[in-house]
């Protein structure tokens, strides 16, 4: 009955093609994911589409940060994303490390209709490679793919860049929901899920922003 293409409803899990066991998957992993990218490329819209299945044409700018959670069911694992959505403007750049520290995954977003935002995305990737957890899974999202007639960044260009830097890459559209769940699912699949770490997602998984134990949080994935 549910719409295959659009995002999950609140309270409903995003499932990966019916692989979830009837009794619920055994292993629950919790990951911290951060969204980075130039202002107004659609970071909040991607999250809102993924978490609440909604899209606002005039999504207001993010001030400070927003935090949302969403759960994704893979074949044998339930992946719970703790998603940090950040403010994009350069002025607030100094706050970013607070968010990507300890993150096991990041989506760096650019706007396919704006070449500058792609350049900025590359800077973010560099910064993450240099300063974030060494094993961080980085995905590059070329958002606003529905505006193909205004395209300024070619798919091939971004794809080549992503391959060179071992990034996941998809062009997405928060507006049409194109590839939104897919990119999160791809990340969920790529994230290491230690055998030993199976357990509840309850009270153990908080990754504290103020914490200095970067190593600890980056190495462990399953709580």
């Amino acid at each position, binding site marked *: *009955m549910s*719409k295959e293409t*659009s995002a999950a*409803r*609140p*309270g*409903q899990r995003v499932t990966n093609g019916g692989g979830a066991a009837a*009794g*619920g998957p055994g292993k629950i992993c919790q990951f911290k994911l951060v969204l980075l990218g130039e*202002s*107004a490329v659609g970071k909040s819209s991607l999250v809102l589409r993924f978490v*609440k*299945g*909604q*899209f*606002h*044409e*005039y*999504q*207001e*700018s993010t*001030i*400070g*940060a*927003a*935090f*949302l*959670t969403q759960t994704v069911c893979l074949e044998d694992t339930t992946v719970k994303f*703790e998603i940090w959505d950040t*403010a*994009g*403007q350069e*002025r*607030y750049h*100094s*706050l970013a*490390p*607070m968010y990507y*520290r300890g993150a096991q995954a990041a989506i760096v977003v650019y706007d396919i209709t704006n070449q*500058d935002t792609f350049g900025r995305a590359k800077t973010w990737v560099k910064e993450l490679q240099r*300063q974030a957890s060494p094993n961080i899974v980085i995905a590059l999202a070329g958002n606003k793919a529905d505006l193909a007639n205004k395209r300024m960044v070619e798919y091939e260009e971004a794809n080549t860049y992503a391959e060179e830097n071992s990034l996941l890459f998809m062009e997405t559209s928060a*507006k049409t929901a194109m590839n939104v769940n897919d990119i999160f699912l791809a990340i969920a699949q790529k994230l290491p899920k230690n055998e030993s770490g199976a357990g509840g997602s*309850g*009270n153990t998984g*908080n*990754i*504290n*922003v*103020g*914490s*200095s134990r*970067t190593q600890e949080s980056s190495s462990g994935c399953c709580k």
Partner: protein
Amino acid sequence: MEEETLVYQQDEVHTIPTSLEELSVAGRLRIIERRHSAYIEWRCSDDESNPDNDWAVVNKSAVTFTHHNSSGSVEISTPRRHVRPISVELADLGSYKLTIEGSLVLIQRDGSTHPALQFPGKDAEYFVEVLSRYVAIKRSEKDSTLFLLRDKKTARIDDQLSALGLVSHASRGSRVRKLHGSSSSDSNRSRGSPQHTSSSQVELHSAVVPWTTAAPQRVMGFISNFRRDPYTTTLTTLSKFYDIVLSEDDWAEGFVSERGGDDLNPFASLSGLDNLEPGFQVVTLKGKLVERPRVERLPPLTQLEYSQHCDVDGGVRDPQLLKRRIFKGGIHPSLRSELWCYLLGYYDWSSSSAQREVRRNERLVEYQKLKLQWSTMTADQELRNSGFRERKSLIEKDVNRTDRSHPFYEGDDNPNVQLLHNILMSYVMFNFDLGYVQGMSDLLAPILYVTQNECAAFWCFVGYIDIVHRNFDMDQSGMKEQLLGLQHLIAVIDPEFMSYLESSESANLYFCFRWLLVRFKRELSYSDTLRLWEVLWSQEPCKNFHLLVAAAILDHERNTIMENKFEFTEILKHINDTSQRLNLEELLCSAEAIYEQLVASSDVPAAVLTLLGLPLKPSSQDGEADVSVGELASEKCVSTDEETSPLESSRIISAGPSSSRGKKENFVLYRRCDHNDDDDFLSEEDTSGDSCGGAGDNNASVVPRGDTSATDGAPRGLVGTVTSILGSAVRHIAGEDASIDLLSPISAALHNEGLFEDAIGQQYL
């Protein structure tokens, strides 16, 4: 199609409007069993026919809107936001708030907080009954409207354990009672549920067991645990002590941590270590704050009343008096566009009507010049001006998504959006260095809406940015200072909560960032934003009143945060979710009450007085009780030099009245700063406490006071610190309770044998 069992259904459950302009929406509340889980769901009645329509693209307001802006009254009505259905799996539900008026707020374990719902006939009894078939429900001891949910199995185990008497709920309860009477706000007062309050407090009271009867067992337990596992035991004890020390009167009531059930788990004490590690947030006051007074607000200033403030030429006779009046009640919408021009410095208070006319004309010319500067820039020029291009691009991105659901700005090609753009671009030319920073468009939009005049809006905006320009500092130092100021405030008005925030690594209060940056605009409805801003612009009754408003919101949320054991992420989510749900008049009352409380209290730290621009008061000379805490502070400082100490990165960020004045310190505040300096952005500057209105210039790295043995002694690190803190605690309790005999074994263990340090040194460090 999934199989569903309907367990509970109630129609006519309404959303509760948070402001006059919002409409209540009826819906159906249900509890449903689906697969192996139960869900609580609420859905707007209109959506029933087409369950999928809430997934459509949401970009328009759902409700009609009236807006008259002739010279007469302005009736503002902003659209109610799209009413989203609620669906919560019971396993994810951490607590709920339910008042006796039958309003229900569901709060998830991850901090998500749903909009309030109103039961018909104020009766939620059956709902609670059905709910209790699935989960164990426990009323919060601190807030009679808050109910905490637990898994039934866990609850049973907990109950069995507590039946063994390992944790004294009684003493916790009585402690709560005291806090209610003093610094913490009594939510019952505002919620109006006196029956609940009294009954729960009577229960608690009857169950109080004097600390002394339980003391021997506790002490013996401590000793035996200590021999078995000194590290864990000490830290457990310390963490409990740490909670208690903040409220000295409660000492006699036992070593009972606030963290409740965690006490039963020996490994939970390792989270006690976490609590300790981030550093201390120790605030001692010689006396408690006086009780918070009840504050009444006035209706908005009307045209008639305003005319009485004006002289024949149209000037304001006593601006101070008028500002005070605006502070107390705000301004009637019909008067806003005029009075905002005074509040924001576009007009002088004393100016006559004729002078203002002249002023308007001058300013119009000036504005036109600024506007020409950017509007005549050619594309070619722009190419060579990256600074300009950058600012322009930011503005274009932001005006396009500022308040677009508000009727004044909604719809494609809305001319008012263009006005926002023009004003911001002109501001770039007015102050190119500051330029445009995200958040500014939020500050401008309501001003343009109120003034309905591009030029007036520009100059009012200039006045507003003059007030808040530090919010947009390149290095965020203005924001850091405000957050630190807020820390100081919370530490004084609610040390227990500050201690909780510290232990959950949230003491940076970063979750308040958005509040402060755009002055609560994202948290309030449009009309409330206008009201709050004019109140803040009155600059009455003190400086930085917006921080008192922030403190008032936190005060309102503190029980929910603490009892749900929310940590940083959950707090942020919860706080972001309280957006659009605040009762502004209530908040302004409590903010003012906090102000009155601080003014009336004699031992308010200088940092806070300075922050609010209040005169420093001489602090009294007595205060035996804070001696041990002083030692604690000193030890803490010593450990900052200790290489191996996990506490080493602590720094003093603020101190109370300076020691050079020969006064005893009564306020010491510490914060952790990590080595990795990206820890949080507050930690970058040592002295930011100072600039934020801290205790003056001599806020050096030396401990302001305390016993000299601590300051001149060799660094002792964690072990020394812990030992000394426990020693202090023991001495203090002994002094207070005359139960020195009972406690001497601890002292002996700590001081004589060196057992402690050896054990830790050899085995655990």
